[in-house]
């Protein structure tokens, strides 16, 4: 046992650094897996029954929905394996039971992350292409960082603001050339606007989800919170959206999904999609408490680079120049946001009044822009 002051001080400094470092490790792990997910995610469109049902707009919308639902189911399955390995299934049940004040935030996040962001991504993949789908969502840290600032006072320094600006410039490169082609009528297809809409849905949805998740993760375990978020998405799709949609489109969605899971190759792609996406997502959630939502999201944006690399390897098609340029600028912006001074990183919540003296903060958090005041 050593208790001298110097070693203690070193150990304390190391402990703080370790927390920050692990936050970035989780965010990087998220980026690698997130990028990898676009390969099975896009490959699914080439397998039956999905390949032969994309001729009409309605058909492609249904295929994208069926794939999104199956993706959600397989992510949840992967997460149950994860919780079983960690021994946290019981805590999953307990956290789920705290629905009134705790897990409801995860349910709220799932609305934006699932039917909006993930479905939007699949629309972008289907209508414009995988490279676009992958880089469009790069803009999400802007939404996440701003909401985290407004809702729970996560610090946005001047440097972070500059990073956000650079990310936006990257976004202009990603979206503008294709959109201009659409406006001129020389675009990739008559329904390509649906893909661009999907791209917007993906970054707005994920940005909002991240901000809400950061709030829930204050009091929940990320390994349990993420499975609850996917439980919610499954409930939304299977108990609400698919049954309602089926009133209008008949049993098409059910038969598409059923034909999908009875095809061995589809099952394989779904298993890969569930594993890559599930573990990317849980790493995302694990990064938030350690380095903050804004920084976690910005760093996870490196996924854009990995996605382009993975897609180039597997599809043997080089992405258009604007995706590389826009993607690299967006990632650069993420780095500007994250390479802040250490002392800023140590306390990610600059709550006014919460200084050494632990002054009053109730008035600050009771403001109109505070998420905690919603629905109360």
């Amino acid at each position, binding site marked *: 046992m050593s208790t001298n002051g110097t070693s203690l001080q070193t150990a304390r400094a190391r402990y703080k650094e370790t927390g920050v470092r692990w936050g970035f490790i989780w965010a990087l792990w998220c980026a690698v897996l997130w990028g990898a997910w676009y390969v099975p995610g896009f490959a699914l469109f080439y397998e039956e029954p999905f390949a032969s049902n994309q001729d009409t707009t309605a058909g492609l919308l249904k295929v994208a929905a069926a794939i999104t639902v199956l993706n959600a189911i397989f992510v949840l399955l992967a997460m149950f394996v994860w919780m079983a390995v960690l021994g946290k299934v019981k805590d999953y049940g307990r956290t789920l039971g705290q629905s009134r*004040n705790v897990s409801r935030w995860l349910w709220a996040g799932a609305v934006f992350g699932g039917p909006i962001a993930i479905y939007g991504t699949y629309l972008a993949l289907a209508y414009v292409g995988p490279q676009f789908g992958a880089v469009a969502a790069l803009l999400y840290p802007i939404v996440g960082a701003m909401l985290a600032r407004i809702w729970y006072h996560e610090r946005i320094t001047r440097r972070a603001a500059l990073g956000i600006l650079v990310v936006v410039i990257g976004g202009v490169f990603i979206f503008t050339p294709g959109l201009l082609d659409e406006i001129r009528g020389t675009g990739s297809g008559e329904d390509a606007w649906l893909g661009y809409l999907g791209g917007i849905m993906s970054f707005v949805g994920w940005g909002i989800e991240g901000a809400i998740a950061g709030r829930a993760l204050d*009091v929940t375990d990320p390994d349990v919170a993420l499975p609850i978020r996917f439980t919610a998405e499954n409930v939304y799709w299977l108990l609400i959206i698919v049954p309602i949609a089926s009133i209008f489109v008949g049993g098409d969605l059910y038969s598409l999904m059923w034909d999908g899971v009875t095809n061995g190759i589809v099952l394989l792609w779904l298993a890969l999609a569930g594993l890559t996406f599930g573990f990317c997502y849980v790493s995302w959630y694990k990064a938030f408490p350690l380095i903050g939502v804004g920084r976690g999201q910005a760093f996870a944006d490196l996924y854009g680079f990995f996605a382009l690399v993975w897609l180039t390897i597997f599809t043997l098609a080089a992405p258009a120049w604007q995706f590389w340029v826009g993607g690299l600028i967006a990632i650069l912006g993420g780095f500007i946001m994250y390479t802040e001074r250490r002392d800023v990183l140590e306390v990610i919540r600059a709550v006014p009044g919460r200084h050494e003296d632990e*002054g009053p903060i109730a008035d600050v958090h009771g403001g109109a822009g505070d998420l905690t005041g919603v629905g109360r």
Partner: protein
Amino acid sequence: MPRLHIKGRILQLLEERGPLWDYEVFELIAAEYGEVEGQYWYDTLRLVLADLYSSGLTKSIEEKLDSAKSFGVEKILFRFELTAFGRERMRHTGISTRRRQEVMA
């Protein structure tokens, strides 16, 4: 069987009992939650405490090194205290028992 999730209960213990060492948190949680035992869970709870600390819900008011308290491995031990922000988060998420007592009183 306890109904509150572990992270929520850790916050409650810090609220009810004041500052606690991480090994004290482990002992208290292990007494209430059947699955919590051994070094694996000790390390798991330390990660939960690291989350709470990084998110600003707790702060460390004392540190020491004592391998006897951490399964023979020399780790820095922390005595954590809830911050005002942590108390506020507890109130907003219904985890605070203090609020319930005040409401009933």
